[in-house]
């Protein structure tokens, strides 16, 4: 009898433990399932808008020019102000092909994108194509070149579905009409609520080098508005 009771007690403890484990695992999984941003397109780490003030990744402090008196000769001017180091810079040439091997993006067409009367950059009309912002620098020129693409279409993944998976250090190749290939390396992949979109960080000056931004949607999908609530932005700079 005592043996039987002890045996039952152990079994009950085991059953209770199993019930607790199942309940906790179930609750966690349900919570994950209910949290919209946890599933669907790859999610980049969220970033608060307060970090906007730190400027683009890799941004270096501008050196305040020393208050030197105006030089009196050309040689003095040359000595006082050597050419700025802007890293590799390519001449103007429109992008004709985009390759991001690590997330299997390959497109031999880029849709030209121009801002509308509202000042907003539209996404490409074609869900399968990336688009480049024609008002910005060509990829490879000094400044922030911008390529945007949809994360998904009405019925499935679109060209930038996996953008949030991009790792720091990944390479992005943009082939240009002049035959040159601008190679960029990813510096950061960030996610922002659209309401807090850091315009200056994304489209603003890159300080002293050629850079690239890849933009798509992310976060939760608001069925009422028909839009995602976040943008995912990958920042890259030109290495060759």
């Amino acid at each position, binding site marked *: 009898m005592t043996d039987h009771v002890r045996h*039952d007690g152990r*079994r*009950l403890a085991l*059953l*209770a433990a*199993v*019930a607790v484990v*199942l309940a906790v*695992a*179930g609750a966690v*999984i*349900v919570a*994950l399932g209910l949290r*919209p941003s*946890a599933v*669907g397109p790859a999610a980049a780490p969220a970033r608060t808008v307060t970090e906007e003030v730190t400027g683009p990744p890799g941004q270096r402090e*501008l*050196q305040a020019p020393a208050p030197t008196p*105006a*030089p009196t000769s050309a040689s003095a001017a040359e000595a*006082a*102000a050597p*050419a*700025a*180091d*802007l890293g590799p*810079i390519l*001449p*103007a040439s429109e992008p004709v092909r985009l390759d991001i091997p690590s997330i299997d993006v390959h497109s031999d067409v880029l849709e030209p994108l121009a*801002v509308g009367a*509202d*000042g*907003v950059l539209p*996404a490409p009309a074609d869900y399968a194509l990336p688009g480049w912002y024609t*008002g*910005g*620098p060509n990829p490879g*020129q*000094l*400044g*922030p070149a911008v390529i945007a693409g*949809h*994360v*998904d*279409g009405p019925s*499935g993944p679109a060209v930038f579905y996996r953008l949030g998976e991009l790792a720091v250090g990944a390479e992005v190749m943009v082939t240009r009409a002049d035959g040159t290939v601008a190679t960029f390396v990813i510096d950061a992949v960030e996610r922002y609520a659209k*309401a807090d*979109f850091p315009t*200056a960080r994304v*489209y603003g*000056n*890159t300080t*002293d080098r050629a850079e690239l931004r890849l933009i*798509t949607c992310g976060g*939760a*999908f608001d069925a009422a508005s*028909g*839009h*995602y609530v976040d*943008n995912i932005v990958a920042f890259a700079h030109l290495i060759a």
Partner: protein
Amino acid sequence: MRSTTRRIALAGFGAALLLPAGVGSAFAADGNANANLTPVALNGVEASGTAMVTVMGTTLTVTMAADRLLPDVPHAAHIHFGAEARNECPAATDDASGDGTLNTTEGGPAYGGIVVSLTKTGDTSPASALAVDRFDTAPGGRIAYQRGSIEVEPAVAQAIVDGKSVVVIHGVDHNDDGTYSGDVASDLEPSLPTEATDPALCGVLAAAPAGSVAAGAGGTAQSGAQGGTLLVGGGLLAAAVGVGAFAARRVRATV
């Protein structure tokens, strides 16, 4: 319950009222503008470049790169703006003299007067517009320029933020002899040939796009992945209830 809901709604309304005011004040005099520099019409230049201007109050930081300019000669560079100008780069139709090239004066109706001289050192006011010994000489045809702490009038800062100013790099080679030469004197400085001051590259400093991009239609947002997750989690919860109930029955049966 109802009063709580109402309080939350009012708080949200208050936040909505505050938001636009905050945005407005933050952007009043600050901003970024970018220019794609392209060859000026009629002047036989095949160069290209970009320029970026950051405006903080009345202080500018300018970064500019260009290449394939006439090498090793000074290239005057300016920011132009005119309240009466078209705030754009000149077209072939601006060739008032009909000589087949555009000089700086002929570009005036398009881009206005000089408001900033992009010198490498010293004064940056319009007074330094032709300070040829302080402009970049484009070694190898390339300019890599950066300068901060450029002070301007508030109206100029505002024009730049509003996308109404124009960057112009001067210095062309109409006769393809590799230097500034020719019989035609500059419209700005008679001691210089017009090649030294004719506009080569031009670009409107445009304001950056505003805000976010709508780049998704939701086709993957509510799909099987999420439903599947809920199903698995729900199943585990149901199993937990079942195991718990079984254990409880065993307890009752034993006691």
